[in-house]
Every structure is written in C-alpha cells, then in structure tokens.
C-alpha cells in the first residue's frame, strides 16, 4: 500500500480501429491519480476498447496512452467475464492466488504468508471457506467476488473494471461497490465501465461519456445531462461501410 505509485493516465488523440473502422476515435482525456471515474456510453461506443488500450492490450492506430512511470504490475484489469474458462479445473484459492503474480511470477513458490493473504482477500469479499471449491461450482455473482478478491491481492495503484456488475444481484453489487469505495479511499485510481446511470451518479464522482468520440468528461453531474446522453446515442449508431478515410486537416478545420 505504501508503495503505491501515483501517476495520471493521459490519453492523447487516441484512435483504435478494428478493420480500419475506429472503435475509439480521436479521444483525448486524462485520469488524475486517485480519481474514481465511470466510463459510460451506448453499446459499441468503444468503452472496452478504451480500457484495453490503457492496459496495453490493443495497439492504437493513432495517438497514444501515457501512464507515466506506471509498470504493468501497477495496473490491475478486470475484463468482461466472457474471457474466462469457467469450466477449468482450478480451485477458488488458486484463482485468487493469481493476484500474487507480480510477486511470485512464473517460478517462486506461494508460501504460507501469501496463502493467508488469499484467505483474507476471500473473506473481504464475503467468501470465507470457499478456498477448495472448484470455480465451476460457483454462481456468477460468487465468481465475480472471486475476481475482486484477486484484484485485492494485485494491490495495484490503478484498477480498471470492464462491466464488473453484469448479471450480478443487488446485494453483491453493493458489496463490490463498497470495495471500490475503499479503493478510492486508499487513493487508488479506479476506472469502471458501467451501464447503470443511477449507480454512476451515486458512487462515481467523475464520468467519461463515450460514443466512439468523446462526448463529455468531468464531474458526473455535468456529464450525464440529457443533451449529452442523446448526443452519445446519435453518434454511436452511425456506422458507414463506405466511410471515407479520416483526414487530419478536415478535423482541424
């Protein structure tokens, strides 16, 4: 905790394209250290793409993401659940223990103290005694708690969450929101992709409204205005197969 590295995340003129169609188009924004930001926008607005670019999983077609002197281990990332093989024969404890990766890497043993940390993290997310259960036997809410326990162990200064509350019941969502609040209190930078506007208004001081292009960015009440939300919906529904090549001069004009 004391060793948390703090640096702003700066996104400059970022364009990420799939098959030349931009999913994120000339977006510039900045996440201050210790900020708690919700990324919202309609489906296909490039929210996940933005998050993945910050993690470094996607290569920008243009522009850049700068994370200062943050290392890979300083950025924890929770992807959408679809990426994980839930039928894999692995226990809850081993799954959570992956959060120690930065400390143990490929070769080092996971000894008693690190195992204890696993148990602590599990009880912090309300899953005491689940250590030896295979992950296939968990409900999706319980599994999401497991992934949050893993995030706890990663102990990163920047935490990126991609739709963390999909198909999660109210009680679990509340518990996990509390955890996010705790991270915010510890001055970690948290960025979460969300859909529930009430949730965002209640729990997230800052918002970034995205519709492939940046619609609004700043304090949540200023961002989530009816006008902005309407603009976002209009912008994201535009998709042209015969779109012209994006010319920089035209944009500046």
């Amino acid at each position: 905790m004391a060793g948390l590295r703090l640096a702003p995340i700066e996104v400059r003129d970022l364009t990420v394209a799939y098959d030349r169609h931009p999913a994120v188009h000339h977006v510039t924004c900045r996440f201050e250290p210790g900020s708690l930001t919700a990324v919202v926008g309609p489906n296909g607005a490039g929210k996940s793409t933005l998050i993945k670019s910050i993690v470094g999983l996607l290569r920008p077609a243009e522009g850049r993401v700068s994370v200062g002197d943050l290392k890979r281990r300083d950025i924890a990332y929770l992807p959408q659940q679809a990426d994980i093989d839930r039928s894999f024969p692995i226990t809850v404890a081993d799954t959570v223990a992956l959060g120690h990766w930065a400390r143990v890497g490929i070769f080092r043993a996971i000894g008693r103290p690190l195992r204890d940390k696993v148990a602590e993290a599990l009880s912090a997310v309300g899953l005491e005694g689940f250590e030896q259960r295979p992950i296939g036997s968990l409900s999706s809410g319980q599994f999401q708690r497991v992934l949050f326990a893993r995030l706890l162990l990663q102990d990163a200064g920047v935490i990126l969450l991609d739709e963390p509350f999909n198909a999660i019941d109210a009680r679990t969502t509340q518990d996990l929101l509390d955890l996010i609040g705790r991270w915010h209190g510890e001055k970690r930078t948290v960025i979460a992709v969300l859909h529930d506007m009430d949730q965002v208004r209640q729990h997230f001081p800052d918002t970034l409204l995205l519709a492939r292009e940046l619609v609004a960015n700043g304090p949540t009440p200023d961002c989530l205005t009816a006008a902005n939300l309407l603009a976002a919906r209009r912008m994201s529904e535009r998709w042209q197969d015969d779109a012209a090549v994006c010319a920089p001069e035209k944009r500046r004009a």
Partner: protein
Amino acid sequence: MTLWSLLVAPFADFAFMRRALVACFALALGCGPVGVLLMLRRMSLIGDAMSHAVLPGAAIGFLIAGLNIWAMGLGGLVAGISVALLSGLVTRNTSLREDASFAGFYLISLSLGVLIVSTKGSNVDLLHVLFGTILAVDDAALLTVAGIASLSIAVLALIYRPLVVECFDPGFLRAVGGGAGSIFHVVFLVLVVVNLVAGFQALGTLMAVGLMMLPAAASRFWARDVWSMAAVSIGVAMLSGWIGLLVSYHRDLPSGPAIMITAGVAYVVSIVVGREGGIIWRYMPRRHLEA
C-alpha cells in the same frame, strides 16, 4: 492359465515384450500431462491434426534411414513444427481461426506424406510408418523415448504456471505482462510434436496421438485439478500399455491398436462410472444435502 502366466509371464519370458512395456511406460509419462494440457486448451483435435502433419517428415526420414527413430523423429519434428508455426502465423494475422488454419496445413502435409511414401516405398513401408512396430523397439529407440519423456516433464514443470494460466484466463496473463503467452504456446506445441514423434515407433503416426488424448479425456472424470488429472492420465496410459500388450500377445493381435483400444475402453468406462461427473451418478439418485 494362471494369473502369472496371464499377466506377467510374457514380459518375464521375452525381452522384446519388456522393451515394449518400458517404452509404453515412458510414453505414458510424457504423453499423460501433455495430453491433459492439450485437452484443457481445447486443442484435442489439433493434437490429432499434428500427428498427421508430421507424416511427410517422418516418411522422408524413413526413406533415408529406414525405421530409425532419429531420422524419422527429426523429419517429423521439422514437418510438425512447420505446420504449427505456419498455422499459428495465419491464425494471428488473418481472420481464420486456429482450427481451420491447422486443418488446411495438416491436410496438405498429410497428403504430401502419403504421396512420398507411396511413390518411393512399398505398402509394407507405409504400414510401418502409419502403425509403428512396438515389438521391434531397440535400445536406441528406448533411450529416445525415455529421453523425450524426461525432457517433456522437465519443460512442463518449468512452464507449468503460465501454461495453465494461459488456458484458464489468457487475458489475465497478458494484462499482468506474464511474458508473451505465445512463447509458452510455441514451446508447448513443440512438446506436443516431440511426444508424437516418441509415439511413432510404438504406435505409428496414425495412433501416436491416441495415448495422449484418450487417457487425458478419461482423467477429466476422475480428478479435479490439473496436476491430479495429469497423474490419472499417466496411470491410465501405463495401464493401457500393459494390458494392450498382453492382449496383443495372447490373442496375436497388432500391438498398437490393441493398446489404443484398451485406452479407449478406459475412456468409455470413465465416462460411465467416473467420480467427477460420470453418467451413472446422474441416474443414481441420492438424497440432496441440507441447504
């Protein structure tokens, strides 16, 4: 017929049976864990494709040096790795999925192999390459198989953690920067090819993959985590080798298919009675537990 003469005597009496048995045990040690990981990576059929892909290399080696495991092995290795790398390249750079690109290249490779063997060799040669001759295992072959088994276990121990994480949650490995996952993938594919090559002499190119996949698939019904599945898989493979050889000896059947069918029986039995999700447990209603 006493139990001794049924189960042990063939091995006590004949050196070639003992060699065959040791070769099977060594194969089991390498193929067991590799097969389990192949299955967990959802690449069972790709193992099959690979075993066909090595044919042209093995055939060329066979034509140059006869049934020499080094020549066939080296040729098979080159052919197998070329196919693996080519299809990997195509998968990563085009929209073709891994199974499709593998299928494309292994079919080309397989047909090349059959072409080579049938124009340059006799039908007997083709049978040798396709079905192997475990009863003719010599010292050199035995040492090679044992060496490959030791190598596979050592390498698997080294890359075990990233390999398991990469098939469970590839996104996580990439996000924590756990090395380039694709390097482990390539190392693992090389291990698959090397173990298939080890299986040549014993089972032939056609069935080498059997001792890898059948015990692995069976192990899923007996164990809950990766390493115990690997242990079960090794056990099943060893047992299949032992019983298969006995069946082939007593009934005068070809040894390769006999071993494979034994493994197949173990697989079917596991599906039915395995403790972890075997079919029979579904139809044996036991009272549910307290909530």
